[in-house]
């Protein structure tokens, strides 16, 4: 128990806040038809959707890392108007509705989009493919990774990187052995956020990628569809999605805590 004093009246809105977030989840759990829960969540459509969601979210998170880490480093170390503009641009997917993101992606990568004919020539058909799902997820999730990592990099500063350089380490070695290890906590929490965002992605996916079982219909799309067909299945699947999200966050957090225990 910490001894830090919290004003007692704060507990009231805090409790209300907890209720506000917790109540819908509890209510959903209560409304699940537990006798048929097993059969509802193990239908082919449900397992296909769950596996597709996990697979695409994993690939998208990886893509976020590959593209987002360099972007975060550049943003954290750059100054000036160009950097400010770049930062605003990178954060756009965070503030626009996902459906708008999906429309924008269509204009860029769609069949009749800016790069559509180029991709066509290369034999790449993005529309209605799992690739489109990954593109949509990466688009909406990357700002979470970039923001979180950029913050960590700024906090860490360049002091250790300077030391590394005077010890004879080139920029790449410094990046690999100093910059990244020191920003690891931020990188991990950013990855969790990005993965969770990928898992929950709906609007951009349905607009840009379509909805076909096993190919583009991720768990959120399946849940939305089941609302029309079988609302009980929608509730059951929603609970599965919540459980998966909580599990992922819990596991990575535990892992991060053990890392934090090893290095401050």
């Amino acid at each position, binding site marked *: 128990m910490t001894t830090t004093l919290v004003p007692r009246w704060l507990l009231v809105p805090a409790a209300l806040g907890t209720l506000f977030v917790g109540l819908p989840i509890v209510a959903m759990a209560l409304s699940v038809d537990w006798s048929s829960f097993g059969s509802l969540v193990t239908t082919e459509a449900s397992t296909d959707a769950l596996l597709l969601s996990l697979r695409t979210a994993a690939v998208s998170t990886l893509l976020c890392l590959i593209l987002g880490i360099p972007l975060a480093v550049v943003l954290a170390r750059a100054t000036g108007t160009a950097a400010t503009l770049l930062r605003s641009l990178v954060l756009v997917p965070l503030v626009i509705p996902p459906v708008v993101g999906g429309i924008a992606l*269509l204009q860029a990568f*769609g069949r009749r989009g800016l790069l559509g004919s180029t991709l066509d020539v290369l034999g790449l058909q993005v529309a*209605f493919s799992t690739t489109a799902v990954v593109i949509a997820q990466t688009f909406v999730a990357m700002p979470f990774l970039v923001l979180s990592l950029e913050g960590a990099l700024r906090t860490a500063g360049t002091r250790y990187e300077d030391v590394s350089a005077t010890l004879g380490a080139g920029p790449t070695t410094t990046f690999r052995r100093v910059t990244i290890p020191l920003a690891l906590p931020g990188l991990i929490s950013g990855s969790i956020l990005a993965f969770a965002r990928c898992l929950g992605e709906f609007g951009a996916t349905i607009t840009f990628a*379509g909805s*076909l079982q096993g190919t*583009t219909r991720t768990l959120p799309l399946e849940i939305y569809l089941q609302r*029309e067909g079988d*609302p009980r299945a929608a509730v059951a699947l929603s609970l599965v999605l919540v459980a998966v999200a909580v599990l992922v966050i819990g596991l990575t957090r535990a892992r991060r805590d053990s890392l934090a225990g090893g290095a401050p």
Partner: protein
Amino acid sequence: MTSYAVRSRTSYAVRSRTAVVAAAVVAATAALVLAGCGTSSGTPEPLGTEGGSQPTEARTLTVFAAASLQKPFEQIGRAFEGSHPGVTVKFSFGGSSGLVAQLSEGAPADVLATANEQTMAKAVADDLVKGTPTPFASNTLQIVVPADNPARISSLADLTRSGTKVVLCAPAVPCGSASAAVEKAAGVDLTPVSEEQSVTDVLGKVRSGEADAGLVYVTDVAGAGDEVTGIDFPEAASAVNTYPIATLRDAADASLADEFVEAVTGTQGLETLADAGFTAP
């Protein structure tokens, strides 16, 4: 004596704290309710009087209707308001299954019009409907293609050509079950690249050119503008969709609701529906 005073003060303190919590809960709830007020349809205030409407009284009629009915129903609603002074007609358009689900959860409404008979049957089974639903319109499927028809589609069989990107409604939604019925009757097996949530999503994919063709209702194509073209196909006759309408059991003003149903199924209502592409049931 002293101990009594102390106890009294304590209990006062406890009570006052509880009161603060209660006040906060009430305030928060009130804020939510107020925020919701702007969008939720108000319950009709007075109960309908026996033997007809009183034109001077302000009343509200709430109609839940399938999304495809939006344009003609809004027109009918305006006409209804014109002939019934003091009456305001509020619509909630959406997917038929979703509307029925809302009603089951207790959403207040007076009239329900669905895009097919199965969904209405569900409402009847849930004991939401007063009396027997009346079929008032029907709708058939049409092939929808981008205006420039890049895949040169002219028949249902063309949709089976390999490389043709076809988008359908998912079987769980009414336009999807109609599509499935057409496929079955025509003996073709379509392999869609996507099974969309709603007609709007199918239209969106065709309009943007992502898909070469889709199956939607005639009325949807009629309302979609110049960017898409509708192509009739004979097999559509095997899946004519009938729209039923009914007054709801919990209608606050059943007689007014009945009058609206009559307005829809009457000559003028049917004319309006025909203008939007619907055919008679």
